[in-house]
């Protein structure tokens, strides 16, 4: 990390704790706005539960709609967490340092939002909760493990548990710092949360081991979660869903949307908390490079999906693909391809653009619009044309309740992130300092040598 300015530890503490200690006006404005949008979602959810799924635009044969699209979308966003913190930690990519916590926390909150949509989408949410948690084992009826809908909660809760542990373990030294910098009841709360951290050598050693272990353990989950989500579709008998490449294809798509979302998150944090010294253009540069690979891999899988349908010309699947390629879905399809590949990839090719933060935000937003559309195009047209000789083909248009709940999901994740930033430092302070120490070097004549050698 070449552009890191020389900062004293005290300055780092002050900069990174600022979001916790100070509360600027813009915080309250954002808080009110997001709470309003979340309130709108609560109203919509109340309507939904009270009157039933009739208030949505769902029908026969389009039984799944915006809720499932949103579920897949948010599970996709959550992939950024492991991608950035686990994989980049294991490969010791230095540029991960300021981003890890934000990405991990976004993982936790977007997973929670995704799980909420699974519950809301069912016909009897109260029964769903009853089924997912304390199941009525008394009657001897266990969940059917053959159903992908049982694999889903298993995958999501494993990932959620892992991510929360990950966030918490990495928070401990910073909580101790917060304890030392606050007074009164706050000090007590942080004191309890930091589990008696004093920063001695043994504790640091344990923390490092925990970080590595959790990274390695969470890595399989990284592959499995979105694979399992894709099996909701892949395991079905629906032409257009029953596709064997869905698992890797969904994982790649998830990484694309998730890492793009991290760009937006980084940019917001940078300007909101004045972290210009910590989140620098070089970080955007690195993420942009990563995304070129991911976006092209996604394009390859999408291309394959089409090739298999159009070349094999299996009638049922062919009908679905034909519908996807005819108006109005053709326009959505073109928009999606432009948003996911043809617009952002050329932009990321240029170093100048990768280091330009407004342009990077633009690509992040565009990619996520594209990825949302991708899920839409997988789910809706397929259900409209299930089996070519069936009598029940239909249309779908989302109702206001569904749209309100989609807006709610974005507001909800943003609100939770905002509240998190108020309570905990958003950039891992100790990791930042660690990065400074790793960077230390000394000179022997003209030679520059690192002060610390990594094993």
């Amino acid at each position: 990390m070449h552009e890191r300015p020389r900062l004293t530890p005290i300055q780092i503490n002050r900069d990174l704790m600022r979001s916790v200690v100070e509360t600027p006006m813009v915080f309250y404005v954002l808080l009110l706005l997001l709470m309003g949008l979340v309130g709108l979602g609560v109203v919509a959810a109340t309507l939904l539960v009270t009157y039933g799924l009739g208030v949505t635009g769902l029908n026969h044969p389009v039984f799944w709609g915006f809720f499932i699209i949103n579920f897949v979308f948010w599970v996709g966003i959550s992939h950024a967490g492991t991608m950035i913190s686990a994989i980049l930690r294991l490969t010791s990519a230095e540029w991960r340092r300021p981003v890890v916590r934000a990405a991990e926390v976004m993982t936790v909150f977007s997973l929670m939002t995704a799980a909420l949509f699974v519950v809301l989408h069912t016909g009897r949410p109260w029964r769903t909760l009853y089924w997912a948690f304390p199941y009525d084992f008394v009657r001897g009826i266990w969940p059917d493990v053959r159903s992908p809908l049982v694999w889903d909660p298993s995958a999501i809760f494993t990932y959620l548990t892992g991510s929360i542990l990950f966030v918490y373990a990495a928070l401990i030294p910073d909580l101790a710092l917060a304890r030392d910098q606050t007074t009164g009841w706050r000090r007590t709360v942080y004191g309890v949360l930091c589990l008696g951290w004093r920063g001695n050598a043994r504790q640091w050693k344990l923390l490092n081991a925990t970080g590595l272990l959790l990274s390695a353990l969470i890595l399989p989950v990284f592959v499995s979660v979105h694979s399992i989500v894709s099996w909701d579709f892949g395991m079905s008998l629906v032409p257009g869903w029953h596709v064997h490449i869905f698992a890797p294809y969904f994982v790649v798509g998830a990484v694309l949307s998730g890492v793009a979302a991290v760009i937006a998150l980084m940019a917001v944090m940078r300007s909101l908390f004045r972290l210009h010294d910590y989140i620098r253009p070089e970080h955007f540069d690195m993420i942009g490079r990563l995304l070129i690979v991911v976006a092209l891999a996604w394009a390859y899988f999408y291309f394959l999906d089409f090739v298999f349908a159009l070349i094999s010309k299996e009638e049922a699947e062919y009908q679905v693909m034909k519908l996807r390629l005819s108006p109005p879905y053709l326009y959505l399809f073109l928009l999606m391809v432009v948003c996911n590949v043809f617009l952002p990839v050329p932009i990321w090719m240029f170093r100048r653009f990768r280091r330009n933060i407004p342009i990077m935000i633009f690509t992040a937003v565009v990619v996520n619009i594209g990825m949302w559309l991708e899920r839409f195009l997988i789910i809706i047209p397929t259900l409209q044309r299930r089996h070519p000789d069936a009598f029940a083909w239909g249309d779908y248009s989302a109702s206001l309740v569904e749209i309100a709940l989609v807006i709610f999901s974005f507001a909800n994740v943003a609100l939770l992130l905002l509240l998190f930033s108020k309570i905990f430092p958003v950039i891992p302070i100790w990791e930042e300092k660690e990065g400074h120490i790793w960077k230390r070097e000394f000179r022997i004549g003209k030679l520059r040598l690192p002060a610390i050698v990594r094993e």
Partner: protein
Amino acid sequence: MRQAQEEHPQDTDKPVASIGRRWGMVVDLDRCTGCQACVVACHAENNIALNLEDVVLQQRAINWIRIERYWEGEYPNVKARFLPMFCQHCNNAPCEPVCPVYATYHNQEGLNVQVYNRCIGTRYCANNCPYHARFFNFWERDLDDTHREYLNPNVTVRTKGIMEKCTFCVQRIRKSEWERRQADEELQDGDVNPACVQACPTDTLVFGNLEDEESRVAKLAQNKRHYRVLEELGTDTNVVYLKKVDPHASETAPAHA
């Protein structure tokens, strides 16, 4: 269930071991006139919600049995073809393994059963059913006292948020069983008739036990016109269709046929 499996160890590839009874139906398309009597009878028997105009326009109408009407040929030689479609009670049902709560499962009589109380309404079964035979209750039913008067007391009234579908009038099967058992007799062929079969004026629909080789339905199922809808999906249905006999087939068929 365990007992039944021990009695029929050879049936391990079947989802559930049978007890010598597999309910099935034969639909003779040559007899079907598309009169929709079966549809009306089904609605009356099974307390199905009224499909009012707004519900139909929302594409949420519930018809456990429907008459699919296909047009064949070019004008002026257009022929209407009718195909009664309902739950095919597949032996290898796509809807069953996707339900996380066993709300739909296969019982020992070959019926694909829907347990309303367990259903949480994921609608995955409906997505997975290639026959579009499953229906979701999008709205709570608005039943006033007059409506309650004509409900069938033997059939559950479904609440909002759950799936429903053709049951082969399981309440009638149970009633016939009970009546025979009171007289200490075995169930006979022709004892049980679902509402649609009873209402059919042309004897298109025949119901019975497919495992009993002497039953009328089993004999009809051997007819050389027999086929199953979407057989290539491997659902192994318990409903057999008999192809329509076209007296003019030889005149209109292409030369190479």
